[in-house]
């Protein structure tokens, strides 16, 4: 099966970069792009603002990074200050998948299914090096990063990352959510579920 390419703009279909002077280069625009007018841009910004500040996360906790995830959740670092208040333990209610820890080959179908169950728009954070690149576990059992099976938006390095790094990664993700294009409704067909 041909799986979709990872797009730098994020996982929202048809999303394009908005804002930023460097992206406003004059290129040949299609008629679709021309119709993006003032209202649609503002609507997109408003939706992005709303979405970035109410991230419902699904912690896919497997390993050591879970300890730092607990720290990031608890009183001192308190990820709730950034709008990622409450973990939802159902992928259908979440829009941020946090892959916290090593993903091995046995776990990979589970992760894939959890990702497929999440509704669009969805984002993925690879929490720690094991989820980002496999880390120093390079053997028969481990997957070399969760991005080998699902697209990842933000990589948080560290083994495990300090909670400050997690918060930094969350802020980066929020910037990304803000700047990508959101639509009130999409005319697209629902993406086909992966096997």
């Amino acid at each position: 099966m041909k799986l979709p390419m990872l797009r730098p703009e994020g996982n929202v279909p048809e999303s394009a970069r908005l804002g930023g002077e460097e992206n406003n280069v004059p290129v040949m625009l299609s008629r679709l792009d021309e119709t993006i007018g003032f209202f649609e841009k503002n609507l997109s910004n408003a939706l992005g603002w709303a979405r970035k500040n109410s991230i419902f996360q699904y912690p896919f906790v497997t390993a050591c990074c879970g300890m730092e995830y607990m720290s990031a959740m608890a009183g001192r670092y308190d990820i709730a200050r950034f709008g990622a208040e409450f973990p939802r333990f159902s992928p259908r209610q979440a829009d941020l998948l946090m892959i916290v820890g090593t993903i091995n080959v046995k776990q990979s179908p589970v992760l894939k299914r959890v990702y497929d169950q999440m509704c669009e728009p969805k984002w993925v954070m690879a929490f720690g090096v094991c989820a980002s690149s496999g880390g120093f576990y390079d053997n028969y059992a481990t997957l070399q990063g969760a991005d080998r099976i699902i697209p990842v938006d933000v990589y948080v390095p560290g083994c495990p990352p300090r909670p400050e790094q997690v918060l930094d990664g969350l802020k980066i993700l929020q910037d990304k959510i803000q700047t990508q294009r959101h639509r009130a409704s999409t005319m697209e067909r629902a993406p086909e579920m992966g096997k």
Partner: protein
Amino acid sequence: MSQALIELVRGKFPDATGSSHRGDEVVTVPRERVVEVIGFLRNDPAAEMKLLRQIAAVDVLTFRSETTGGGSIASIEAPAYALQKKPSVEPRYQVAYNLYSITRRQSLRVRVELRSDDMKVPTITGLFRTADWWERYIYDMFGVHFDGHPNLQRLMLYPEFVGYPLRKDYPVRKRQLLVPELDFPDLVRGPGPGPGGAGVPMSQTHVGRANVDPNTYD
């Protein structure tokens, strides 16, 4: 004190051989006797070894031949796939039962040696219930077959996995994927699975290895 344990076992089972290293006492017994010996150690009032700490196994295939070297010069070592073509060392496997007595504060290791063409050991699940998972673990990692085990299946790995990873001739990085990997360009980790790809970091590509088998990646 523990030397007395070896004497105790040898008094009852004359074909057992004892040895000692750094204070660890070891009794090597023939395979057919393992249930008998461990049952004796468990129930004899002078031993009272009620706690089975661990079952471990060792593959001694490269015990004598392995070249020295650390992680940084690991690439000059014999690759695992070349080992599969070399003659085996017999007896190749050792299964070690680490026993302990909580009441008498003494420990003993019972060791069984196995040839690679006949890897069967009688199970001791009848003596210790904790042996259930340990035997499954050894089966999973080494392929040692425990005769009479009620549920001898893979424990850590998945049923689709072929081979036994802790054998010395299993390549370290040979993955058996369950989900197809995404194919995207990655400067550091390579374009995808396969030789020189995702499985192998750039620093450890097959430099100086002429006979790389393209079907395996080590």
